[in-house]
């Protein structure tokens, strides 16, 4: 009897695809290293080694904590503000129709240019980074929530009324489950953009944080540091997005099953 290799290792498996893509990525990276040399970028293996020693230093964690704290605050503010605004604009048709294209326009504007304004209002430091993260993350969350509320099937609301649900019951058993899938999508997009905002904030005019480490590595010709921190940040972003994407898919499957 021949033993079949496990399904995930076969030519058709997901994991196989992932391994091939990862291998391609490492090959391109190695190629860049061969082309540019140690002055511009470190090799994948050296970066991995340096990154694993970096995460054992207190200095790295001091900066990572600064970034995570700013990111956490801006994400919470983005979600609360975004969902609240989205609910209001979704429930009030006219206000929603007025606001939506304006929000889309704001979304496509280079918000980096607004950073000096935020620095002048909040001063250098945590609150400026948080504010900058929020202006990046809040708009997609508003837009997704707005559309979720706008597209609620009116039959659901009428049924809730027929069944004489209390307002609280209506929200918890009808409205919340109906908007949840799109809301999670909004939060996923908001998550990525908030992180982008915080990191850009740290790369310009900041003395702490992972964004600062990246830009400082370049100024001090410490390419090893820059490459390793980029690897850590990007890995974190991909893993976090993967988790949210997984929740997102489960939500849609749940909504479709009802």
């Amino acid at each position, binding site marked *: 009897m021949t033993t079949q290799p496990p399904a995930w290792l076969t030519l058709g498996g997901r994991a196989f695809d992932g391994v091939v893509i990862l291998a391609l990525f490492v090959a391109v990276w190695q190629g860049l290293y061969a082309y540019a040399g140690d002055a511009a970028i470190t090799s994948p293996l050296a970066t991995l080694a340096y990154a694993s020693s970096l995460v054992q230093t207190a200095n790295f964690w001091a900066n990572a904590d600064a970034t995570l704290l700013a990111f956490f605050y801006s994400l919470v503010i983005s979600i609360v503000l975004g969902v609240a605004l989205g609910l209001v604009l979704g429930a009030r048709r006219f206000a929603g129709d007025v606001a939506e*294209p304006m929000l889309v*326009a704001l979304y496509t*504007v280079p918000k980096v240019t607004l950073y000096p304004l935020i620095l002048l209002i909040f001063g250098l430091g945590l609150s400026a980074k948080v504010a900058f993260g929020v202006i990046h993350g809040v708009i997609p969350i508003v837009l997704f929530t707005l559309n979720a509320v706008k597209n609620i099937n009116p039959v659901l609301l009428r049924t809730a009324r027929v069944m004489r649900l209390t307002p609280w019951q209506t929200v918890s058993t009808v409205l919340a489950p109906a908007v949840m899938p799109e809301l999670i999508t909004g939060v996923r997009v908001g998550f990525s953009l908030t992180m982008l905002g915080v990191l*850009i904030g740290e790369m310009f005019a900041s003395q702490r944080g992972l964004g600062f480490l990246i*830009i400082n590595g370049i100024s001090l010709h410490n390419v090893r540091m*820059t490459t390793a921190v980029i690897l850590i940040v990007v890995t974190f972003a991909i893993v976090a997005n993967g988790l949210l994407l997984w929740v997102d898919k489960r939500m849609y499957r749940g909504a479709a099953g009802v």
Partner: protein
Amino acid sequence: MSRQAAIGWTRVAVIVGFLAALEILCRMKVINPLTLIPPSEMAMALWGLFVSGKIWDDIAQTFSTVALAFVFSVTVGFALGALIHALPRVRRAVDPLLASYYSIPFFVFYPLLIALFGLNTVPLIVIGFVFATAAMVISTLNGLDRVPRVMTKTARILRLSPAQAVMQVTLPSAAPYLFTGLKLALAYSFIGVIAGEFILSGGGLGFSIAYAYNEFDNQTMYALMMFVLVIATVMNGALHVWEQRLLKRRTRA
């Protein structure tokens, strides 16, 4: 007054009201003039920059960089999209990659690009390109996915050559999605280039804003900020209007 017109006018009123409130608050010194200057002063300062000619070099540099990033991202994005569409096996492998593409904070690569290519416009073009291409790939895939089967079958029945089928059936049918791709690619190349200039560069509008900030030159800084925001809004608005017109023509036909 129709509902559409009411919405439009309310929008105008919101913007005008916002600018007026800002103007009054700044003039009454409720807002510290060291923090924010009145919109009218921004406009005057901007006019001054145009008259003195200081702004033209920045405009030329930024827009030529954006144009290059845009053209590269649209051509490469479209070609990649068409290629991936033709190869279902590859597509299944890249789909998760495309889905999480924009979760990667690409600007962290910008310093590395400077180390690789030097402090010139190449890293800016690359960052704009990297930021914009995936949007074009995704839109191309969307468009090609939604070409109705009836149309491709009709093309076959009419014995169109492959080139004819692409020019007369596939492309016109996918056009709205391709247009969305163009729109996103333009917005993203603009954001990418300006952000790169802002973080670290030797010229361009983003650089001049950061420079003015460091020099405490609020007049120039706010004038340039206003210019960038107005240009981006006008650009997006114009494309939106054009898109609506294309769509209207389709539904009539």
